[in-house]
């Protein structure tokens, strides 16, 4: 036959389900975009500059290393995603050299020194963030107030969790929970939050909803660029769940463990005792949604099996709770995840699947 020259010879299987490293990276990137666009809307073009700096630094670093190693890894698009996540984990007012340093650290040190994508044992973006947080703590904990509050441009203030952490040092002042604590401290809310809360209270909630929750859920709060909008992060993740790029195990066990611990012990910081923690408040504040949905689920640095992922999720939830409530940081998500990243090889070793045909007859 004359066309023989064009015939492929490979081993089986000859079909493929269709996904690729690149398609996965691009899908996650696209699902993250709405939350980032929201960040730019509430914090202004300054936020866009931060995110773009992080992406450019990340891609350039990977390009340089690819050149040195003579192995082009740019087409897998993972550098774009890492850069985006570094940018999302930055406060909007941060000097631009900081996201650049975080990206370079993420790619060059955390990812490439271990052999590139897939070989890193810690989430690069989170490691980058933690590195710059400890290096430049001041700018990394200065928060731009959202435009939706209607205050002066470029005004800065405390983040929700930071306000509470700092405030609680002097005692809770009789507040029953974090929302009341914010109210006692005259923490501002957006006009939208106040209107919607009022409307919800006349119907559904019957006066039980305190001000501030709408801001937390929608993302009208000071915080990192990509983490503020729990709503858009949740929406974006629907597609990732549908495509099975992320599976339920890590997000669900992470959030569930964290929620249960907050519910049981969260009230102790105030005067409300056991089983009175404010779960909703903590679920939607800080970087929890971004962490649980997009960063803890990073394939490379999470366990292989379903059982392993559950252990990982529970561990991350526990550590986040511990750091946020009893540590000196208001947050805890990034540290919790990178700590759990270190346990992944061990978890994998302990959760090997039982092989087919090795069951004892008696156990069937």
């Amino acid at each position, binding site marked *: *036959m004359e*066309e*023989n020259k*064009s*015939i*492929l*010879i*490979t*081993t*089986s*299987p*000859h*079909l*493929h*389900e269709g*996904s*690729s*490293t*690149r*398609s*996965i990276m691009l899908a996650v990137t696209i699902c993250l975009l709405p939350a980032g666009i929201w960040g730019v809307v509430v914090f202004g073009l300054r936020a866009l500059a931060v995110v773009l700096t992080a992406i450019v630094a990340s891609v350039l670093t990977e390009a340089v290393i690819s050149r040195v190693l003579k192995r082009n*890894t740019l*087409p*897998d698009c993972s550098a774009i995603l890492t850069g985006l996540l570094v940018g999302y984990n930055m406060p909007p007012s941060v000097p631009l050299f900081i996201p650049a340093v975080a990206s370079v650290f993420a790619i060059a040190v955390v990812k490439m020194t271990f*052999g*590139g*994508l*897939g*070989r890193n044992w810690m989430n690069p973006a989170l490691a980058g963030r933690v590195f710059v947080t400890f290096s430049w703590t001041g700018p990394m904990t200065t928060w731009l107030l959202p435009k939706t509050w209607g205050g002066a441009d470029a005004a800065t203030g405390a983040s929700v969790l930071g306000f509470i952490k700092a405030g609680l040092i002097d005692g809770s002042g009789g507040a029953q929970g974090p929302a009341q604590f914010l109210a006692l401290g005259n923490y501002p809310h957006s006009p939208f939050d106040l209107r919607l809360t009022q409307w919800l209270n006349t119907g559904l909630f019957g006066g039980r909803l305190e001000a501030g929750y709408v801001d937390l859920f929608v993302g009208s709060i000071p915080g990192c660029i990509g983490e503020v909008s729990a709503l858009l992060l949740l929406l974006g993740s629907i597609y990732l769940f549908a495509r099975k790029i992320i599976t339920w195990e890590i997000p669900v066990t992470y959030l569930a463990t964290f929620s249960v611990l907050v519910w049981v012990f969260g009230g102790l910081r105030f005067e409300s005792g056991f089983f009175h923690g404010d779960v909703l408040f903590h679920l939607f504040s800080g970087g929890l949604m971004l962490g649980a949905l997009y960063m803890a689920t990073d*394939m*490379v*640095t*999470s*366990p*292989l*099996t*379903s059982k392993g992922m559950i252990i990982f999720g529970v561990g991350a939830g526990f550590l986040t709770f511990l750091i946020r409530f009893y540590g000196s940081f208001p947050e805890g998500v990034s540290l919790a995840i990178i700590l759990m990243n270190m346990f992944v090889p061990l978890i994998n070793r302990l959760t*090997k*699947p*039982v*092989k*087919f*045909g*090795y*069951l004892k007859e008696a156990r*069937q």
Partner: protein
Amino acid sequence: MKNAKTFPRGGVHPPDFKSYTREEAIRNAPVPAEAVIPMSQHMGSPAECLVQPGDDVHEGMLIGRATGPFSASVHSSVPGKVKEIKEIYLPNGIKSQAVVIAVEGEFNRADGDPAAWQQMSKEELLTRIREMGIVGLGGATFPTPLKYSIREGRKVESFVINGVECEPFLTADHRLMLEKSEEILTGIRIVARILEPEQVLIGIEENKPDAVEVLARAVENAGLDYQVVPLKLKYPQGDEKQLLKSLIGREVPSGGLPLDIGAVVSNVGTAFAVYEAFIKNKPLVERVVTVSGSALAEPANLKVRVGTPVSDLVEDCGGFKESPVKIISGGPMMGFALADLDAPVTKGTSGILVLSRKEAGRAVETNCLSCGRCLRACPMGLQPVNLYKYIDHLRYEDALAEGLMDCKECGCCSYVCPAHIPLVQGMKLGKLMTRKKKA
């Protein structure tokens, strides 16, 4: 069929591509001008060639004698004159001696006595199956008489008939079940006389509801107590280990045989071959082959004489519609890519697929992402990526300890791998190197 059974762990759902040939009735492929009949068409040692160039042969004549229990006899599929004996490469890359027969003369095989088998003893039945060169037609081509030789003291609880045909594209078994249901049942009854099983189960995936219905009706009409069991669609359910897990809920122990859990599994095609051997006095010289794929003009299910070159089948199906990117012998998940179209159809050829770029295109391989998809897809509970890494680092001992030999190369891991790592290729290499080390 909400309660359809399946195996619990692993497996994938590739598109089945069966609509190309699902409605195509089996028709006879043209008789080749020259048949190339390999002496090695089965698992085990090759048959010993009994003819020389210049010899006259007739249809069904023994031309290769089995060289032991792990071998199978080979018969001529055509009448004619032996032109030469040569070495050829089989689709799986193994070299084999092959008899080239220039076709001439009459097809004059006589039918047998349709009732004779009812008077035969177990040994006589087994001998006939052995003489007729029957091997398992599901793909592994395990010598059938060996499978049916049950040692003293062992009991067959379940005789399982495999009508799953889980490989995409293939519809040969499906058509056979629709068109030859009574013949298949006769074949099963003959085998059941040898095995004396407590129950006979016929497993069929539910993408073939017509076959389930036809066989269930045939069973009822014949007054038999066989069960036709619909199974939920999932690859690789047609593998005997998965099929037994689906049907009787037990796992064949690692390194063992179905008989270790009281089961014997045969393909519907094998049951039909048994029927032909006894009722038609016909050795295994013909089989149904699905010729399909998006690059083929007129896909079809053909009854093909062993030794017919693939090019004859392609031509009979209208040739190429577009230039093919890959030509496969067997199914797309476990079949072998052919280097040219001269390769002959053998007893184990279930399909010839001509794939275009949209089906066979491949993406660039990247580093492993540790996504764990291969672990979740593996029906054997293995860790394909870890096995691959061991083999890649020449650590064969470690790979063996992690169950390399339990891998049956079903391809689920490679199918789902987003990094496009050739996992199955690694497994094959690992097994080959292990065997070489032992030798």
